[in-house]
């Protein structure tokens, strides 16, 4: 383990970088289907820049993070620990989970909140090969008429939306790009 990897790749100017990143994360969550650039962090492989930047922006010692599948490497663990202090936990306890869709599943492992505190639920950061504004048809809050977004599994995500106001929220990341899908969005297959 090279010390520089663990300690480097954080925000250069944390207040400014984190504010830009937070703005991007908030915008895509508020406007499902929109794709934005998200940069600032240089995380160890296999994390994408967008996923690493999200983790630095959203995590601290009080957010429990689950690393799924190949995202769970010694390098990622050490990097996340130094940069955010976030404890690394199993899927069922996570506030945030990061990994590829197949590694993250099944979705019913994650917390979906309670009727008193729907916010006590997990947010999944799904690493994708590409993000495109095509595929599933999205409608609901934050979308004027309809939006389109490439989603990994429409059936599972529709099931999640049906739990509203409970359920998980999703970021999709690929390279330096991010999109999001809150539980409040209605999903239809293209057609």
């Amino acid at each position: 383990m090279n010390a520089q990897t663990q300690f480097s790749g954080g925000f250069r100017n944390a207040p400014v970088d984190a504010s830009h990143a937070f703005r991007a994360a908030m915008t895509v969550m508020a406007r499902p289907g929109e794709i934005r650039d998200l940069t600032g962090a240089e995380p160890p492989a296999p994390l994408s820049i967008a996923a690493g930047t999200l983790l630095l922006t959203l995590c601290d010692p009080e957010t429990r993070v689950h690393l799924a599948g190949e995202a769970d490497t010694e390098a990622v663990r050490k990097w996340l620990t130094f940069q955010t202090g976030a404890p690394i936990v199993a899927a069922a306890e996570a506030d945030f989970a990061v990994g590829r869709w197949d590694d993250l599943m099944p979705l019913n492992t994650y917390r979906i909140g309670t009727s008193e505190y729907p916010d006590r639920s997990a947010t999944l950061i799904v690493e994708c090969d590409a993000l495109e504004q095509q595929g599933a048809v999205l409608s609901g809050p934050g979308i004027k008429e309809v939006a389109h977004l490439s989603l990994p599994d429409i059936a599972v995500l529709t099931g999640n939306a049906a739990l509203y106001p409970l359920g998980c929220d999703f970021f999709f990341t690929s390279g330096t790009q991010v999109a999001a899908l809150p539980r409040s969005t209605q999903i239809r297959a293209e057609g």
Partner: protein
Amino acid sequence: MVEQTDKSAEARQAWMGVLARAPQDALMALWDGLQLNPTYEWLRAPEIGGVMVRGRTGGTGAPFNLGEMTVTRCSLLLKDGTVGHGYVQGRSRDKARTAALVDALMQTGSADMVRAKVIDPLTMQMQAAKTARAAKAAATKVEFFTMVRGEDQ
């Protein structure tokens, strides 16, 4: 970096603790006296934050959250690749930076010199202050005299 042995971890624990608790003025005076100006780059620039202090019910039982304290921390990298961490009580970025530099140098060939000029004198100053308070406390310790009472005769 070489994996730290338990013994070196224990030694580092000891000097980092001294640096954290040291009065800022005392630490800065000793550090400035060294006239060292090592080149370094930030891994984590000094940031001020809080640590939630815990106690235990009844002093020995289940933990509970007592309240926070201010802490300043930073991490830096010397030219030779040594990483130094500073975690100090209070809100002084300067103190945190100095503590991280001392922590880094304590892992290099300068360790003996830094120990003799910074860590040892700080430890002694702090021990002296602690002993002075303990001495005043000792002077307020009650010495009971047992009186002979009439009805017991």
